[in-house]
């Protein structure tokens, strides 16, 4: 029953976006909230019902497609608007609608004083529609539509406060950097169509193993081009630079788009195309290496940032690196598992940070917070849960998912990848608890002015925090290691990844239980050490970090300035293009093109001035000319 309605899941938010967009500024706030939140809530309800029906089916028949209409038909090429519901897209659909719904509710509180309330909800609903199209699409072209549309919504929402130059700049930057990735994605789709003659997932993935030899150049090229798209959208090296700047947008937007959903689109795409990646071991190792390098690189920057949202942004980049590490070693389920738990706790962290910022009237500097534990009790406790989850402390969600990725990295990728992952996990625990201690503990460094307005957020904001806190706390139990029958997500996703079982790099069959326990204990210990170090540095002895920064001055400045990557890109890429464009503008556009157009105009003007002389205004002159003409014509005809 509900399955036949499942096309409504993406389309309800679209209707909400249209209604709120067309009558933006005219509808009362209550109506905007009802439409904005209600459409996503209804989507969530249908999604849950669909999920229930999907679970009731036997595992091998859990694949359901629903075609709406043919979108593009041209020769051999055809692209349908058709949605597919299988375990993988079902997980994504639930994450998007579930977390999306909570963030919509939160937004009614956070954005309550905003003038452009209708515009905000219109964009947010449009984003939900786009993201659902992306994850439910059953062909590459429709997926690309969703892929571009989420990019557009991201641009619109980062630049939501477009009066602020920084926000407008950040939106532009996000859009342009994403275009570079999309270029790769689009080329990948072209190559897929040329190779397979189709863009349907089912056709392409069914043909791929016969069509492409293991490790062939075409398979590698396709996989790498698609991965270029993923690095753009999911903020991996070298295209991660837009995500920290994207924090200029409203905080719920950062939670929804730049933490929980959109930035995970790359991970979802790699998991969806797992067959293509498994056919190219080289591309797969590129994914793993880029993932682990990004995880480490972003974590180091996160250690020293002072803006609460920027720390979270670098943390997101780092966690996305973990997901790619999981996918890159061939453990796609682990990547998706971490994607899901990360959506819970990172959305919670951002919303908690938003609650803190809201309470402090817009203050984002960690050094102007402190001691907020007593004043913001609900925010504090939920934030603590999320911090424990991301640090990977048992039994919170992040422990299970991160540990699984590290275990799979050890098993299939070797000790080096594992080691890098563990170092990253240590830094994660450290910078997250640095953030936590600086915000909620220690002496208050809040400015006098902000102290006056200090208040716990309204329940429209704290209730979503609690829901997400519950999910962050228990979400990991969907996939319990070691326990027989504990790997529920594995079993649920198995039909999707089963077709590639014979392609996957042979994982050591013997399930070395002892090793898994040891690895688990090590990563737990590492997380606890990270937390302890953060406690020593920022609560017990606040002089230590300053002394360290003094001693390793060069290193500190290097990391604090984010390795000068933005500056390097600016001088190596942006400035040359800018200067070249100015040259083209002045020397080609202004001189050649404008010259040609204006020249044609001037010549016509000159010609007209000559012809105009004939029009004298005296009727009788015209009559005379007419007569002479008639005489000449008749004379010619008569005397011919």
């Amino acid at each position, binding site marked *: 029953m509900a399955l036949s309605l499942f096309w409504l899941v993406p389309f309800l938010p679209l209707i909400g976006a249209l209604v709120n967009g067309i009558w933006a500024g005219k509808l009362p706030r209550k109506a905007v909230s009802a439409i904005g939140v209600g459409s996503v809530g209804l989507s969530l309800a249908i999604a849950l019902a669909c999920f229930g029906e999907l679970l009731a089916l036997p595992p091998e028949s859990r694949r359901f497609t629903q075609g709406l209409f043919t979108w593009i038909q041209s020769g051999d090429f055809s692209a349908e608007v058709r949605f597919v519901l299988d375990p993988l897209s079902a997980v994504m659909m639930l994450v998007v609608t579930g977390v999306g719904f909570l963030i919509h509710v939160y937004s009614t509180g956070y954005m309550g004083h905003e003038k452009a309330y209708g515009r905000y909800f219109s964009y947010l609903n449009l984003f939900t529609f786009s993201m659902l199209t992306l994850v439910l699409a059953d062909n590459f072209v429709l997926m690309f539509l969703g892929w571009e549309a989420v990019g557009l919504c991201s641009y619109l929402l980062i630049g939501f406060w477009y009066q602020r130059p920084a926000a407008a700049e950040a939106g532009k930057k996000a859009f342009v950097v994403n275009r570079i990735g999309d270029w790769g994605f689009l080329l990948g789709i072209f190559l897929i169509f040329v190779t397979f003659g189709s863009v349907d997932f089912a056709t392409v993935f069914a043909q791929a193993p016969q069509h492409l030899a293991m490790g062939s150049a075409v398979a590698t090229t396709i996989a790498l081009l698609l991965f270029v798209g993923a690095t753009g959208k999911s903020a991996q090296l070298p295209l991660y630079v837009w995500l920290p700047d994207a924090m200029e947008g409203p905080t719920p937007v950062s939670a929804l788009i730049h933490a929980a959903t959109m930035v995970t689109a790359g991970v979802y795409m790699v998991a969806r195309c797992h067959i293509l990646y498994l056919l190219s071991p080289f591309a797969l190792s590129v994914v793993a290496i880029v993932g682990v390098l990004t995880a480490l690189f972003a974590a180091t920057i996160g250690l020293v940032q002072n803006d609460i949202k920027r720390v979270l942004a670098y943390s997101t980049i780092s966690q996305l690196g973990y997901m790619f590490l999981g996918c890159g070693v061939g453990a796609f389920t682990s990547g998706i598992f971490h994607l899901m738990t990360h959506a819970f706790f990172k959305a919670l962290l951002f919303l908690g940070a938003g609650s803190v910022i809201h309470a402090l009237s817009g203050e984002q500097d960690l050094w102007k917070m402190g001691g907020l534990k007593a004043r913001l009790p609900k925010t504090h406790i939920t934030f603590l849960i999320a911090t424990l989850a991301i640090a990977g402390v048992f039994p919170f969600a992040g422990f299970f998912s991160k540990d699984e990725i590290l275990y799979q990295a050890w098993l299939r990728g070797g000790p080096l990848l594992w080691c890098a992952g563990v170092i990253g996990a240590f830094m994660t625990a450290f910078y997250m608890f640095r953030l936590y201690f600086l915000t909620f503990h220690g002496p208050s460094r809040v400015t006098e002015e902000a102290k006056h307005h200090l208040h716990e957020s309204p329940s429209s904001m704290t209730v979503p925090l609690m829901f997400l806190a519950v999910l962050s706390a228990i979400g990991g139990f969907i996939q319990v290691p070691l326990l027989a029958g504990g790997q529920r997500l594995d079993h649920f996703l198995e039909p999707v990844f089963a077709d590639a079982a014979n392609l996957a790099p042979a994982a050591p069959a013997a399930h070395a239980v002892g090793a898994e326990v040891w690895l688990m204990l090590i990563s737990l210990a590492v997380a606890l050490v990270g937390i302890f170090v953060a406690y020593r540095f920022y609560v017990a002895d606040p002089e230590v970090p300053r002394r360290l920064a003094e001693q390793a001055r060069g290193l500190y400045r290097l990391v604090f300035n984010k390795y000068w990557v933005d500056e390097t890109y600016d001088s190596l890429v942006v400035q040359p293009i800018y200067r070249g464009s100015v040259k083209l503008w002045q020397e080609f556009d202004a001189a050649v093109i404008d010259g040609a157009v204006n020249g044609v105009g001037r010549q016509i003007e000159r010609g007209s001035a000559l012809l105009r002389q004939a029009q*004298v205004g*005296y009727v009788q002159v015209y009559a005379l000319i007419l007569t002479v003409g008639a005489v000449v014509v008749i004379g010619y005809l008569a005397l011919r």
Partner: protein
Amino acid sequence: MQPQGIPLDAYQLVAALLFTIGLIGVLVRRSALIIFMSIELMLNAVNLSFVAFSKFHGQMDGQIFVFFVMSVAAAEVAVGLAILVAIFRNRETASVDEVHLLKG
């Protein structure tokens, strides 16, 4: 059928004379009213020619055409005179030499 009495050439001569007088009137007179009358003269020269040929060939087409010419001429005069009156009211002159604002 050869008509009795006055030959066709005579009619054509009169018609040509009338047309030339009218044409000269249009080209040299300054008063718009006179120019109108001259135009009527030219039209009637053509009408005369039509009727003469019609009689000469024994066919009615020419005479029917004359009725059309006359009705069009009547309509033209009605409109033309109205314009003329309007111009005269505005500019207090009917001389075409002084109505020459529309020029390049």
